[in-house]
């Protein structure tokens, strides 16, 4: 018995065991990032939510332009923020599509309806009569007053709007004009003097940024283009939680089956492979947490599948190792020869799977991308644990003389 090697072995086992427990069980309640499986972001299909693809449509009044799509995105962002959704995703896809993802909202259908409805921008006088609407506002931009340096918002009306605005301002000097978005007062500037040319300034603002925000709201008060729902996927929170629960149960059952199989078939090396597999699962979960990978249901399937594939490397190695033992090599040289010869096969075969995963990532959307990411991370991590770690551990076990019976090594 070689005590130094045995000690190393015990330390490694203890470390992995501690990390494993910390990874999944909330042992220390005060530490926010433990258990770290909590840090793995859950996809919409797990936590519930909505994924919508909107497409801007040309209408006779308002053809789709790059600017109108940008403004439509600003409106949607503004409305989404009003729902109080944490971390919404609003992205442009291609020329005229907008992808919106909202996680964990109660009524996804209502959220979608609110998102695509045409909002209404109105200008009202003190007595509540609507004098102008968003259609007559040509543009709104932020700027600094060249004389005073104060931030302001510059409004410019369409010709027909300018005429009305001139009359209204003339009749309301000293009184406020209310600017409402969806019936909520956005601004209520006082009229200082009649404005005949349709160009008005609202000021003062604290900063250019504050002026900028108001300008965006004014500019994009109404959706500048017609938006159609091309694709909508909503998942209720109960269904998602249920699916996650089932997948975890299935995963544990599958994992245990693999662990048992490996020990029964490969004996001591199998036990080492099992230990490496648990380390593998921990490493992969850690990477998921660190890279903020979004876990989807197909993603979980991909992860579990990668568990099955991760032992493949060990199976290749152990089969080789057995052959070397049968050929009459010593334990240690059989271990080395087994690993050396198996490496090329493992490398070549994993590269092809990585090619498939990369293609999936490139062409896939949403959950499929998640599947490709988890599969790829799994393959890369398994190359490390199955080759480096199993080899080191196997040498430790063999070197510690803990088990000398060649039969226990499967020979």
């Amino acid at each position: 018995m070689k005590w130094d090697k045995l000690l190393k072995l015990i330390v490694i086992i203890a470390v992995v065991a501690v990390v494993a427990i910390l990874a999944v069980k909330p042992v220390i309640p005060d530490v926010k990032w433990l258990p770290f499986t909590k840090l793995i972001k859950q996809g919409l299909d797990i936590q519930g939510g909505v994924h919508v693809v909107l497409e801007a449509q040309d209408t006779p009044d308002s053809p789709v332009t790059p600017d109108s799509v940008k403004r439509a995105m600003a409106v949607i962002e503004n409305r989404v923020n009003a729902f109080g959704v944490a971390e919404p995703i609003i992205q442009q896809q291609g020329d005229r599509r907008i992808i919106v993802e909202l996680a964990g909202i109660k009524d996804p259908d209502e959220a979608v309806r609110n998102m695509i409805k045409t909002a209404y921008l109105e200008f009202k006088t003190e007595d509540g009569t609507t004098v102008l609407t968003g259609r007559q506002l040509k543009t709104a931009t932020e700027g600094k007053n060249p004389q005073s340096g104060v931030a302001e918002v510059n409004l410019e009306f369409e010709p027909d709007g300018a005429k009305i605005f001139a009359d209204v301002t003339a009749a309301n000097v000293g009184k406020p004009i209310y600017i409402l978005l969806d019936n909520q007062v956005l601004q209520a500037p006082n009229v200082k003097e009649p404005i005949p040319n349709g160009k008005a300034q609202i000021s003062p603002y604290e900063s250019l940024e504050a002026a900028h925000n108001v300008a965006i709201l004014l500019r994009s008060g109404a959706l500048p283009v017609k938006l159609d729902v091309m694709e909508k996927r909503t998942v209720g929170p109960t269904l998602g939680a249920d699916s996650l629960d089932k997948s975890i149960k299935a995963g544990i059952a599958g994992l245990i089956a693999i662990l048992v199989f490996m020990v029964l078939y490969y004996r001591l090396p199998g036990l080492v492979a099992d230990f490496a597999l648990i380390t593998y699962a921990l490493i992969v979960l850690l990477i998921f947490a660190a890279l903020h990978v979004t876990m989807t249901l197909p993603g979980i399937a991909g992860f579990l599948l990668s568990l099955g594939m991760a032992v493949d490397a060990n199976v290749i190695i152990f089969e080789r190792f057995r052959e070397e033992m049968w050929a009459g090599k010593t334990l240690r040289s059989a271990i080395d020869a087994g690993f050396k010869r198996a490496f090329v096969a493992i490398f070549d075969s994993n590269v092809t799977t990585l090619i498939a995963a990369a293609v999936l990532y490139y062409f896939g959307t949403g959950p499929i991308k998640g599947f490709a990411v988890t599969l790829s991370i799994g393959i890369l991590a398994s190359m490390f644990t199955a080759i480096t770690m199993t080899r080191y551990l196997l040498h430790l076990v063999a070197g510690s003389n803990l088990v000398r019976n060649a039969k226990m090594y499967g020979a």
Partner: protein
Amino acid sequence: MLRDKKPFHFIKLRKIWYVISILVIVPGIISLFSQGLNLGIDFRGGSLLDLRFNQPTEVEQVRGVLADFGLEGASIQRSGETDFLIRTRELTEDENLTIVQNLDQKLGGVTVQRNERVGPVIGQELLRKALLALGVASILMVVYIAWRFEFKQGIAAIIALLHDTLVILGIFSIFQIEVDSTFVAAVLTIIGYSINDTIVIFDRIRENMHNRKKGEVLEDIINNSLWQTLARSINTVLTVILVLVALFLLGGATIHNMVLALLIGVSSGAYSSIFNASPLWYDFKKVEERSKPRGARA
């Protein structure tokens, strides 16, 4: 080497393996041409509602409400007492809302668990992308194998992949199991996985060719390599199948069809890697050898 008894010769019996493959594939191809695949809303466009009613409900009751909207032809699938999966043509946001409200009022309360709507344009794009992905992945893999091994092995591997894809497509077509975008992920994974198996075997053949003994013929080298890697081939498939069976039995309904496709594909992939890829390569080699002298004479 010890334990060197081989019950049969893989290469000499190769015609039998080809026949088995053809017997499995042909019914699927016939089905693909006659009834095609049961494309889900991902590819065809349409709406899907996954509903849970507050009280036990019958299919007829649900169909009755849908009939008011001219949707009596919708596919209504019941799972359990209160859960229903309804597939219809693409509904507008308004239609969707009124239908759910009507079901809610007439049948005593309903929760929408899942609601998906895919426009026909998106569906077409997904289908195009899926086919493109399959094509690109296959080409890249042939290139890789041709680089690491030889071109003929790349072709043999791709035919084995085509075999696996046809087996999955065929079974899904015969039983009209619904095909959605996760199905594409499954097929691509199988392509990656099955080629894994083939490569491990090719790797062994490459090594054995290197250490070729005098007088050893190619068919025996391949046969030996297949027997040497057989335990690995079987054990690997077993571990993956263990996980997949667990996912199939215990996992949720959302990934059910994906897992099923993976199960079929992994099994077929193991078969084609052992019984198709290497024998095919052997036949390609033979054709090459036969055509060479003839070419020299001409």
